């Protein structure tokens, strides 16, 4: 368009513009100012370590030890300690991998995609969500790395990562499993970069505050990671551009990661796996489970740290609605799979889905449907969204449901494939159960360290969305 108002008269219709009053919710409640935000968020890092934190950390470390013990036992003994056996040669390892990778997606969605969509409500939750992404990727990476048994073989002779060797042995580059290696490692790297770039201004603030308080050691540590941040105009300009570029890179990356994860199954011929809707359906499912985990973590954090003014009911509302939307998309995909399995008239496909719903694993299927399709429908109701305890409980169901989704897809199809004579029933070994259980401890340990030592919210970004940052007092967002 490019024309200016002075080029032509202002149309009379603009004089008739008298909008109905429907104010937007505030993003920071109780008119909190810049100073309050700084004190609140820095105070969590600067204050004495709460007793509850030590209890939680101890418990999380104990749970994490199950994973460590399980993995040591696996490496010492062999992958036979897991319950895999013909015909189910993929089971909890890849179920857990896909589960954790999916969890991570909400962080990138909030930090990158909502950034590109200019959704200002993301500011209060993007930092912990990004942290969650990184920790979830760490938990996810455990399974493909350790499923090779002798983990050093992952690098040399290169069972996972390409490694030039004298035998000329290479991975199958046409396999989506190999694409996963590249996609997930790239995703992990970019997620760390994105998270770290966002942290820099806040690390600079903490450095300055520790310097003023005379705490030289902490000032030096935070100062080292703040990389000389001074908050100059030039630095802000570079920072904003870097952030935007990383958001632009992360967006296709996050979508590609779960698309490739879906290819792990969809490129094959196994009934129930080969379905063209898998890529967008997996992405929707990942966002669904990721938001479930964000709320699972943020609601207790909000209560414990009294962050109600920063994570308002509006934030909870928005996240519940995203869970509702993505859960409904997942429901659409389940229905479409079922319908096309019938419509396609392929007896193997038809059987795979009937077997899921009414076969030996029907219990898992109906847990999946209940948690992923029915549970989010409660979020249609404002009264439910306003009840944080209920929201938290429903989000737990979402987390459970999404784990079961991967279990249903992977195990039911393998357990009952084309050849009835090779059918079997898979049950996990105690080592598998403990190893997976322990990853919640690994995740919690990392998350607890994050909330203890780093600013859990981006102070600078939150300050930009409060009315005080707008000289005209606009509250639009």
């Amino acid at each position, binding site marked *: *368009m490019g024309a200016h108002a002075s080029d032509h008269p202002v149309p009379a219709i603009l004089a008739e513009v008298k909008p*109905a009053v429907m104010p937007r919710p505030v993003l920071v409640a109780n008119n909190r100012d810049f100073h309050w935000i700084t004190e609140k968020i820095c105070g969590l890092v600067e204050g004495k370590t709460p007793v509850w934190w030590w209890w939680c950390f101890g418990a999380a470390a104990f749970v994490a030890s199950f994973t460590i013990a399980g993995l040591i036992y696996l490496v010492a003994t062999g992958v036979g300690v897991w319950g895999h056996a013909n015909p189910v040669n993929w089971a909890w390892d890849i179920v857990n991998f896909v589960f954790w990778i999916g969890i991570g997606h909400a962080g990138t969605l909030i930090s990158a995609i909502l950034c590109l969509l200019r959704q200002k409500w993301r500011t209060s939750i993007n930092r912990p969500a990004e942290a969650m992404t990184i920790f979830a990727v760490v938990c996810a990476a455990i399974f493909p790395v350790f499923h090779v048994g002798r983990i050093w073989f992952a690098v040399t002779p290169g069972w996972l990562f390409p490694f030039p060797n004298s035998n000329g042995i290479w991975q199958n580059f046409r396999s989506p499993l190999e694409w996963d290696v590249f996609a997930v490692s790239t995703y992990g790297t970019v997620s760390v970069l994105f998270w770290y770039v966002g942290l820099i201004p806040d690390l600079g603030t903490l450095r300055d505050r520790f310097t003023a308080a005379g705490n030289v050691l902490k000032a030096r540590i935070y100062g080292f990671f703040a990389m000389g941040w001074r908050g100059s105009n030039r630095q802000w300009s570079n920072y904003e551009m870097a952030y935007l570029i990383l958001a632009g890179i992360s967006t296709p990356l996050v979508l590609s990661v779960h*698309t490739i994860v879906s290819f792990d199954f*969809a490129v094959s011929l196994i009934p129930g796996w*080969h379905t*063209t809707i898998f890529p967008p359906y997996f992405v929707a499912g990942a966002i669904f489970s990721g938001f479930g985990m964000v709320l699972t973590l943020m609601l207790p954090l909000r209560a414990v740290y009294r962050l109600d003014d920063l994570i308002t009911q509006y934030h909870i509302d928005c996240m519940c609605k995203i869970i509702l939307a993505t859960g409904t998309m997942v429901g*659409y995909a389940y229905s479409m799979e079922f319908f096309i399995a019938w419509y396609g008239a392929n007896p193997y496909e038809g059987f795979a889905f009937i077997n899921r719903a009414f076969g030996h694993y029907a219990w898992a299927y109906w847990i999946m449907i209940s948690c992923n399709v029915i549970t989010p429908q409660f979020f249609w109701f404002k009264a439910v969204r306003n009840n944080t305890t209920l929201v938290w409980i429903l989000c737990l169901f979402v987390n459970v449901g999404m784990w079961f989704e991967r279990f249903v897809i992977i195990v039911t199809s393998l357990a009952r494939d084309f050849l009835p004579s090779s059918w079997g029933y898979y049950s996990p070994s105690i080592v598998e159960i403990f190893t997976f259980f322990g990853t919640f401890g690994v995740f919690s340990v990392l998350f607890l360290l994050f909330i203890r030592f780093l600013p859990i919210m981006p102070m600078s970004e939150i300050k930009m969305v409060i009315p005080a940052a*707008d000289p005209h007092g606009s509250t639009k967002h």
Partner: protein
Amino acid sequence: MSAPASTASLANKFLGAGLAGLALTAVGLFVSDPHGVALSYLIGISYWCAIAIGMLLLIIIHHLTDSGWSTVIRRQYEHGVSAFTWLAVLFVPLLLSAWLKPGFIWPWMDLAHPLHGGHGTVGQDVLYVKKAGFLNQGMFTGMTIGFFVIWIGLSALFRKASFTQDRDGDPKWTSLSRRTAAAGVVLTALSLTFASIYWMKSLEYHWFSTMYGVWFFANCVRGALAFAVFITVWLYARGDYKGIYNTNQFHTLVALAFAFVVFWAYVTFSQYFLIWNANVPEETFWYNIREHGDWLWVGMLLLFGHFFVPFLAWLVYRWKAERRPAFIISAWVAVIILVDICYNVLPALKDAHDEPLPFLSINLLWVLTSVVGVGGICVWSYLRSLATTKLIPIRDPRIVESLTHHEAAAPEPGQVVEGAH
């Protein structure tokens, strides 16, 4: 000054063009292969339904996300969806053909219809028999009527709420539209999915793909966004939008269109790749027949024209923010969506050797007359509606936010917006 300058003369021209196009298409039934003409007419209907469904979806998304920036554009979608009533009327000949001459368009409607290659009839085809509960005339007719009831009903609710709010300024209409959108998104998603399956996919009823509804959804929204660019550029050129519509709104609109370029490519590539990689004959045949003759080049045209051309062009900021390049690229997108629908429909026309009839044939003429015919009526409906209301929803709670999109200051209600350019 409230409503845009008169469009009566232009509307009449489009009505004339529409009637002429429909008349020519009808003539085609007698002077050409009637099967090809009928499928061409189906393409015309499907194409314009896609654009109207896309506009309905954009209204729904606007309300669900409580969007601010798109408020000044939303009114144009509300006029656009007025076409559903006429599209329903124009669909009647297709429904009549389903009953009066079963199998004429959709082969599965005639159980005695011979299968290609001399493999018996539809009624003897085990693949048809398995899905006969879904693919039958009664279900087809009932579902199609249901689709139009949903689309017309939702459109009427949104239009009524928006137009009434212009008069009384009651925020309850916004709340009502939000609730309508919540129910509407589910209904529209399901209806467009099954419409695409019944109208297009079932022409080759052996084939199946769970992605098909998502593919149609992508084309619907892309088409609606392309037409939103045409409409807003046209209104700006006429002077109606001057002082109302600014570069930022336009850029955001085209950026959304750009996002859907990528989404379409993602969906279409995923469908193709997964079928190609699995290499199962019952799926690959659909693509295989589209590699015969000039259909291979149509496929290439879609690959480059539907994705690479708009994608690379719209990577340039200026081409998203300036009217002329954005208009040209949108026009290209609008044409290529039509080609995409042709790619899905026309290969169902087979010659004596079971090969698809070529793309470059007389059928393209009937596609053209059908698209002009149905489109003329749709544009006429839009223009007729445009003249009846305010140009923008002046009492919408987010209208000032929209007028000042990306500007620091939000003026007080009723204040003339300075610099709203």
